[in-house]
């Protein structure tokens, strides 16, 4: 649905976005996460050409956006909805009139606009709020108006620019649930940028982490979360960093997903080996519909390397604190 090829944006000598490549398929929710200044705003604005890329191509639904200008570009933009952190609703218009605006621009008749606006208000669960002005709505309601406005022209793609960053946690959850719902109900493709890991965890299928204009990690959210060394996993499951293991102990991070989560491997560990297994930290989250978890374990005792070997064989992703893999540790200590 969205193909991004070698996209670059340079301001003077500052490289805001460095050779970004991605293929986002229809019906996917793709997240771009990064700190402010990482280039994610630049990226999303290059997709609908609010900013003109220095080089590279953006192809949305088979149309090369980078090659368009004038009225062709405006028509192409109507096929992409966009929602914003601060909602960007016109204060001089009611909720219904805000939603009607893209339709007015497209030249819809008054009658069609009225029918479509009513449809959209119910889609975002704002029935009865059509005549309220933005100043009379809560943050969550304003964002719902923003979403309805973005979807007014029935676009294939929704661009979300930090759309939940100005909302409280509870409202954030309800907006994310709405986006996920729309994604499933009408097959909407969503490209969202955020600095909030929670958003990625909650609704994204795939993610790219941007740092100083470069992608430092990308992949399916579940896959990344189940790899102990990934940046995403380290953000999802914060580890103890200052803990010093006992001299006869190993500090091990175990990541797992799916069925393994149901296996009592910690109990087995204690039964089969002469080892003390001490959980320092850990969590299991549901990501993409399956359990994904990570434990930080201290293995102490004479058979700790055998225990480590067992964990590795269990199809768990295992990482020993000093960065070496389990096998390397085992070989080192059993010459």
């Amino acid at each position, binding site marked *: 649905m969205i193909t991004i090829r070698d996209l670059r944006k340079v301001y003077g000598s500052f490289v805001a976005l460095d050779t970004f490549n991605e293929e986002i398929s229809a019906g996917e929710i793709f997240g771009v996460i990064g700190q402010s200044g990482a280039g994610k705003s630049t990226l999303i604005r290059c997709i609908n050409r*609010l900013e003109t890329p220095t080089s590279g191509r953006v192809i949305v639904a088979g149309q090369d956006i980078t090659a368009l200008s004038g*009225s062709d570009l*405006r028509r192409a*933009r*109507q096929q992409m909805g*966009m929602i914003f952190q601060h909602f960007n609703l016109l204060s001089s218009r009611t909720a219904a009139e805000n939603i009607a*605006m893209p339709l007015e*621009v497209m030249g819809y008749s008054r009658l069609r606009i009225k029918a479509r606006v009513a449809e959209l208000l119910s889609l975002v669960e704002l029935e009865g709020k059509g005549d309220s002005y933005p100043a009379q709505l809560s943050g969550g309601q304003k964002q719902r108006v923003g979403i309805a406005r973005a979807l007014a022209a029935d676009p294939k793609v929704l661009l979300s620019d930090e759309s939940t960053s100005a909302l409280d946690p509870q409202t954030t959850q309800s907006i994310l649930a709405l986006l996920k719902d729309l994604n499933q109900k009408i097959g909407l493709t969503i490209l969202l940028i955020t600095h909030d890991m929670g958003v990625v965890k909650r609704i994204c299928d795939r993610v790219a982490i941007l740092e100083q204009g470069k992608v430092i990690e990308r992949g399916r959210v579940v896959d990344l979360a189940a790899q102990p060394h990934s940046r995403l996993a380290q953000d999802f499951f914060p580890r103890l960093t200052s803990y010093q293991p006992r001299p006869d102990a190993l500090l091990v991070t175990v990541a797992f997903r799916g069925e393994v989560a149901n296996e009592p491997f910690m109990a087995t560990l204690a039964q089969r080996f002469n080892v003390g297994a001490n959980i320092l930290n850990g969590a299991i989250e549901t990501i993409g519909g399956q359990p994904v978890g990570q434990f930080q374990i201290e293995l102490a005792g004479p058979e700790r390397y055998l225990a480590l070997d067992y964990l590795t064989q269990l199809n768990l992703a295992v990482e020993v604190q000093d960065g070496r893999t389990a096998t390397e540790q085992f070989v080192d200590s059993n010459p």
Partner: protein
Amino acid sequence: MDAQLLSNLWTATLETIYMVSVSSLLAAVFGLPLGLLLVITGARGFLPNPAVNQGLGWVINGVRSLPFIILLVAILPLTRLIVGTTIGSTAALVPLTLSAVPFFARVAETALLEVDPGLVEAAEAMGCSHWDIVRKVLIPESRPALVLGLTLMVISLVGNSAMAGVVGGGGLGDLAIRYGFQRFDTRVMVYTVVILIALVQLIQWLGDSVAYRLRRTGNVAPSPGWTNPLARLRKT
């Protein structure tokens, strides 16, 4: 109060209202597009053009730096060209309008620049043309500030119209000078001043009420910064 004085006051009031309202209307009609042009060709506008922007800025500053009384006399030939005469209330309209146009252009520029750039971005993202952005975003969103700016301009025109007597334009200021000052008739002076004060209060109250209604804040009370004492009296 004798009938002659009353009639003089009435005529002068009507002359003032005529001069102020017509020149205000004309100034708004010509000033708003100029303000828009300043914003659009400005560095943050969607058609940045430093030559047009700075050129227009110079002209506006130039006209604004002329004291009104000088402008009034200096453009007499232009006045004759436009209205065919250089005396009377209608002749005074030309300098009054000319002085107010650049004033309102600046007021409109300030009001339009205050529109959140995020709104313009949202409009662009939904496929609006520049013209759509002007008529659907910039002007509607700046309406409260435009109305307050217009109020400011109308009141300054009330002041300027007092000088219309120089070209035989009449009005309250002229009456005050000729009867109140030159004929030492203190009553006339006091009456005209009272009428002028009432006029200005009325204009300010009207402007504030309209701007408040355009603000679409629901039922939030207007900020104390621009509440008018009369408006407050009216509420209770």
